[in-house]
């Protein structure tokens, strides 16, 4: 995955994705042929109502899940993710993408610094880059919180820790699932500001949201409706 910067190849691309979940004896189609792409350095917002399949799309992009057999594919720098070996997919999640969730998903037993270091520990197996973690946390205004447990932090602080964790291994893409969904408006704005800064520094972002106002911060908005991409619009259209 070192073939960085191939001219004309999107960084991340979803091609005609189908995903069906089985609930009891009923098959529930969640994605029914969704396609989208993300160019290097781009910020794409995926806008959709609850149940439109936007989280599932994000999970497929992040390599946490695989599309249905013959249900399309996810391409990263032109290579299919779902056909990679397990080890290679683990490395993809660890190095190439960073995931941020609505409910922060920090480990309650670990303190702020340890939570941030976790992808480093998982990836290298030996020593994580403590300086990188401290630097990130400092940038996010958390240097006085390093030894605190997640339960001692506010929602905004938790989400900043989660973003720091996602960025530790310097991924190319940040995949954010409703990153402000659980925060009040002011705190949400702070988080979005933070994402904006990282984006300006060169980070590519796919952000899922149900909030049109937030989606409009992105370079481009993709609208998901019943598992299909309805429009692929650039910010300038609005």
């Amino acid at each position: 995955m070192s073939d960085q910067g191939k001219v004309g190849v999107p960084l991340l691309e979803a091609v005609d994705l189908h995903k069906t979940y089985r609930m009891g004896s009923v098959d529930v189609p969640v994605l029914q042929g969704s396609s989208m792409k993300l160019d290097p350095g781009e910020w794409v917002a995926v806008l959709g109502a609850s149940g439109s399949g936007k989280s599932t799309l994000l999970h497929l992009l992040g390599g946490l899940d695989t599309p249905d057999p013959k249900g399309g594919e996810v391409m990263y720098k032109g290579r299919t993710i779902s056909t990679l070996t397990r080890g290679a997919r683990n490395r993809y999640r660890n190095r190439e993408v960073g995931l941020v969730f609505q409910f922060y998903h920090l480990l309650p037993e670990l303190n702020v610094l340890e939570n941030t270091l976790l992808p480093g520990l998982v990836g290298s197996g030996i020593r994580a880059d403590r300086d990188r973690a401290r630097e990130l946390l400092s940038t996010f205004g958390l240097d006085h919180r390093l030894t605190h447990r997640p339960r001692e932090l506010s929602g905004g602080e938790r989400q900043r820790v989660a973003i720091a964790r996602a960025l530790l291994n310097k991924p190319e893409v940040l995949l954010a699932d409703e990153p402000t969904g659980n925060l009040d408006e002011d705190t949400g704005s702070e988080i979005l500001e933070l994402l904006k800064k990282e984006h300006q520094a060169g980070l590519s972002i796919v952000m899922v949201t149900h909030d049109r106002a937030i989606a409009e911060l992105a370079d481009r908005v993709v609208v998901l409706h019943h598992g299909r991409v309805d429009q692929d619009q650039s910010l300038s259209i609005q």
Partner: protein
Amino acid sequence: MYHFLLTSRYLTSRIIPLLAIAAVALCVALVIVVVSVMTGFLDMIKDSGRTLMGDVMISYPVSGIPWYDDLIEEVEAMPEVVAAAPMVETIGVLRMPYPRGAVKEPKMVQIWGVDPERFAKVTTFGETLMWPEVPESARYQVSHDEAYGPIIDTFDRTQRIAILRASDWEDTEGMSDSQVADMGSALTQPEWYEHMRHLMLDKGDTLPRILRDDQRLDMQKVIELEQAGRLPIDLDVLAEGLSMSRNGRPGIVAGIHVSDANYRDSNGEYQIGGNGHWWLPRYEGALTTIPVDATGGTLEPETVLMPFVNEFSSGVFAVDEIRVMIPLGTAQRMMHLDAAEIVDEFDPMKVVGVEPARATMILVRGQDDIDPLDLRELVRAAYQRFTDKMIETQPGSVSPPIEGINPSLRILTWEEQNAAFIGPVEKERALMRTLFSIVYVVCAALVLAIFWAIVYEKTRDIGILRSIGASRPGIVWIFLLYGLVVGIIGAVIGLGLGWLITANVNGIHDLLAQPPGWLAWSLAAVTVITLLWTFLKLFTGRILPVMLGLMISILLGLLTALVFILDAQGGVVIWDPAVYYFSEVPNSIDLPAAIITMIGAVIFSLVGAAIPAARAADVDPVKALRYE
């Protein structure tokens, strides 16, 4: 190395793993205590062989081995041998000095005729002697015996008959003088002293007519001294050291449980029945054996009246209840195994030779570092040299029994001699080990259940770890490591706990036997405090603390009641020496077994953790992350 980080955090920040550790520790402690006590028991049995009989014995029952001193010389010449001692073993009937009156209790006993000095070099006989001095509870009676004894010894037959007729102790109406005399001779000396005292005190007018003047004056002096509380106590009752005789008379050293007068209280200490009245060394016993002649037929029974000079406590109940020791010479005479002149068949005045004294058993003690089986072979070779020499130097005379020709001649180690006794205990220990291995399964099941709950609780964490790239084997390894650490910590705590219980098992036993008052009262106090706490928690509206408080209170309450009941009933003796052979519970830890148990616990903790770990690896990260 996020595994170590997570494992250490999961261990230190939650209560559930502590439960798992406690479960493992209890399982390990249980197995260690049970196996250690069993092993200790077996070791005590094996050790007791050495302390009671030495390492190797040459035995030729009934007929005995002649020229045994030559044999002992031959055996003791070997540097591997510490000492050897001759012994005559037989069975007999011992007429005990009790109960009061003409009818006494007879007891079947195993008689060991030993030379005490040599016997004590092979065994720990000297250390097992019970009474280094007269116990406090027997001093009063003994001083009476000492004071009245010499006077009573001067009474003649007529006086004795008159005394018995005058006393209302025995019903002598209608009995002839000789019947009364027979009855009198059946009384023990201490019983005579009792008679005299009562007669002097209650029927002072009768005695002067029976006693001579000098006897009456002596008696009067003793009574005055007694009433003034100045009775002389010259307590020369016990045999000196190992001499096994008193005033030149051979005496009996009886096992502590031979006499019914000794009983063991719940503290494990020996008490003398009836306020010292039946403290054996005050009395005499009549020992009867049946000698056997050269053809294997029986001869007239031999009876010897001997004072008890001491008692011994070997710690092995089966020995202490049946064995009495008497001097070797006495036993040889009683069994007709002593040296005797051989006379001419037609002219009894003509001595044609000397029949040597015999011993039915030679006990051999080896150096500490020699294996009993090696020692046995050395002794066997020495015995061979001994028989060769005897056949050469004593031609035509009696010859010692020869191995292979005389089948009842045996040269065995203690363990072989007592195989029928040791074997079942060894089997029992193996059975215990097998049965208690089930505890491992319990241990694994507990760890499994607890880890299952932990994995369930940690599902979201697993999803997060997977989302940042943790592999499935990585997730398995977290929980295996967790199980390993729980197993190791549990096993180490279990070892400590097991050691603590095993080392203090006698103290715990004594505590059960006689729970101290403070224990009951402090338990009661803690119960009341817990109940109060529970009552206060009622107002918080939460059910869990109330439930916990109630359960702990009930448990403590039951414990308190149990201690009070034990206290009221005078305790319980679980380790009854009559059942367990030994008077002490073995209290040393069986280290090899403990280490095996610990390793087993760690392995089974891993087995218990493996299944939840596999389940954790199978967690679908997408589903796991939906949990909130």
